[in-house]
């Protein structure tokens, strides 16, 4: 009957332990616990406080949407270098619409600013989707490889951001309360409205990646584009959707930056694409495509910014800012090494 094609080994306890260590999320949670303890001691007890955690989560909120965007793109086997400059451009255009278009300024604050903030979010989202569509055009129609296509867009969009803003921040109406952590029954939590919103978007993105046909095609395309096409799926159409999703999320990250700073500035997204890529690598996404989970990305981004903030909070020794950069670089290299070891372990 052909049922001889069977695998016979039953998993032993050792295998189970090994498997769980190969699971990126378990490793990342363990890393976070260790980092938390180390920084708590090194900071003389100020790291695990609401104030620091709120800052870590605020940074997490700035970058997680880009990391999620990058995850979808990288799983298809591509890369999107334009996400950082899309943050700059979308926040600048949002600021421009409010300041130059509607002639408003930062004197509008608190609840009165909410409608304008929502307008800024909408504008930033539209700008992001447009940049994504442009990337898809370059990749699908002009057949430019994603690295070069999005590198070109990255340059063009940061240039546009400078032209539109005149190189200066555009300060418009804002409600800073959106970024202030909640206080519930007198207890301050480390989570604000903006962070909570971003968290919800991340969960939805995770459900879409892991539970829907859209996510399945994303993996299929990165895993075997030929098989995907043979199964009757149009790669170009899916690539377009993925890059527009990436652009849209980068646009929302631009809105986040606008709310965080109360201004659209052409440097709001400076260097963010590199952190987003680093976060995806730490989170277990393979740059070869086909591999990655949103929970890993969420934890990977958290590890990255725990280290960023943690090193600043250290009191027992003075960590110079330059040494901080070196430590973050070592962390990223270590994450890649762990991935490679895991991969070899499977073979």
């Amino acid at each position, binding site marked *: 009957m052909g049922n001889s094609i069977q695998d016979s080994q039953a998993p032993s306890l050792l295998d189970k332990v090994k498997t769980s260590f190969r699971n990126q999320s378990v490793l990342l949670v363990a890393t976070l616990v260790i980092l938390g303890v180390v920084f708590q001691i090194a900071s003389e007890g100020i790291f695990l406080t609401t104030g620091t955690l709120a800052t870590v989560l605020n940074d997490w909120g700035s970058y997680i949407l880009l990391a999620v965007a990058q995850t979808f793109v990288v799983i298809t086997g591509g890369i999107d270098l334009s996400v950082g400059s899309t943050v700059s451009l979308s926040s600048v255009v949002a600021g421009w619409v409010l300041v130059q278009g509607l002639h408003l300024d*930062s004197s509008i604050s608190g609840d009165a600013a909410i409608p304008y903030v929502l307008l800024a979010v909408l504008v930033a989202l539209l700008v992001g989707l447009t940049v994504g569509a442009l990337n898809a055009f370059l990749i699908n129609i002009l057949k430019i490889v994603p690295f070069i296509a999005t590198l070109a867009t990255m340059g063009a969009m940061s240039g546009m951001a400078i032209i539109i*803003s005149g*190189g*200066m*921040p555009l300060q418009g109406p804002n409600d800073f309360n959106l970024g202030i952590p909640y206080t519930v029954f007198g207890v301050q939590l480390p989570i604000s409205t903006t962070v909570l919103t971003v968290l919800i978007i991340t969960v939805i993105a995770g459900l879409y990646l892991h539970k829907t046909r859209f996510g399945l095609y994303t993996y299929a395309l990165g895993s075997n584009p030929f098989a995907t096409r043979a199964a009757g799926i149009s790669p170009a159409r899916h690539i377009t959707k993925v890059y527009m999703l990436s652009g849209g999320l980068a646009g929302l990250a631009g809105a986040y930056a606008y709310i965080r*700073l*109360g201004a659209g*500035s052409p440097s709001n997204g400076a260097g*963010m694409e590199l952190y987003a890529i680093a976060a995806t690598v730490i989170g277990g996404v393979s740059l070869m495509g086909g591999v990655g989970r949103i929970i890993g990305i969420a934890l990977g981004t958290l590890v990255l910014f725990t280290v960023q903030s943690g090193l600043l909070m250290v009191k027992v020794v003075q960590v110079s800012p330059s040494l901080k950069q070196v430590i973050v670089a070592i962390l990223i290299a270590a994450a890649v090494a762990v991935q490679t070891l895991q991969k070899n372990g499977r073979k």
Partner: protein
Amino acid sequence: MNKRILSVGMAALAVAGLTLGATGCASTKKLSIAFVMGAESDPFFQAMKVGATDEAAAEGVDLIWQGDPSAYDVATQVPIVDNVIAQKPDGLVLIPTDPNGLQASSDKAVAAGIAVANVDTHTADTTDAVITITGDNADGGAKAADAIAGAIGYKAGKSYQVVVGLTSATATTNVGRLDGFKAQVAAKYPGIKIVDVAYSASNPQTANSNVNNWLTKYPNLSGIFAIDGTNASGAAAALQAKNLVGKIALVGYDAYPANVELVKTGVFTALIAQDPAAEARLAIKTLVDYIKNGTKPSNHDVVIPNVTIDKNTSASDLKKYTYVAAK
């Protein structure tokens, strides 16, 4: 295409200028002044462009405005300068991105009979330049120290904690301002301790995160020196969000219109501003004088001091020093 027509036109104009100059009728011919700046995207150079354009119009000379769109980089600047020299302008205002890297280009311009002025920074050897005009970053740092000391009501014998937000360890403006700040603190305010510095890597969100962490780490923090526009934006947002406006002294740098507004509302205790437009105006005026009349400036090395903008600054001064984006 336009550029080529322009450059041919410029060359023809320059040749005509030289010929007429030889016959003593130079004043009837329109002079051209080339202006090669650092990076178009920097608001500092945007403000400089405004001053340059105004002065060129007032003097009735043609302005050739050139420079890299975004990179403050010797590698991209040298070919730009060489191209400009080939157009044979009467004068060249140069913002050398590197003192040694631009020396050869500057010498080439002088050899071609072009009058050269250095602005903001200068080449290693300025003997052949008609004038060098620099802003004073160290002076700006010292003024920032004075502003913080004033805002916290500095009293000898008491101790105060201050942090400095930087962009990187190597940005020359950062280094100059920080050195000036430290020197002034050491000389006049020994009670002030600079407890921490951190880098923003040019991203205001990172600057914001640094300040938020400092506010947790140093509950008794007295003041923040945000050394450039990026750090100023990030720090201002942090104080506004945490409702600490007025409780912690914040001195920023660069008179972006948005930040000048925040001086009025008290978010910034003070802003230290440069005057790029004044630097550009002086450079062009000096060159035109020299080319037309052969007059050398009385002072070869001019330092334009920084100014402190605070709540007491007059409306007219605010208008004068606020950076305006060039059209």
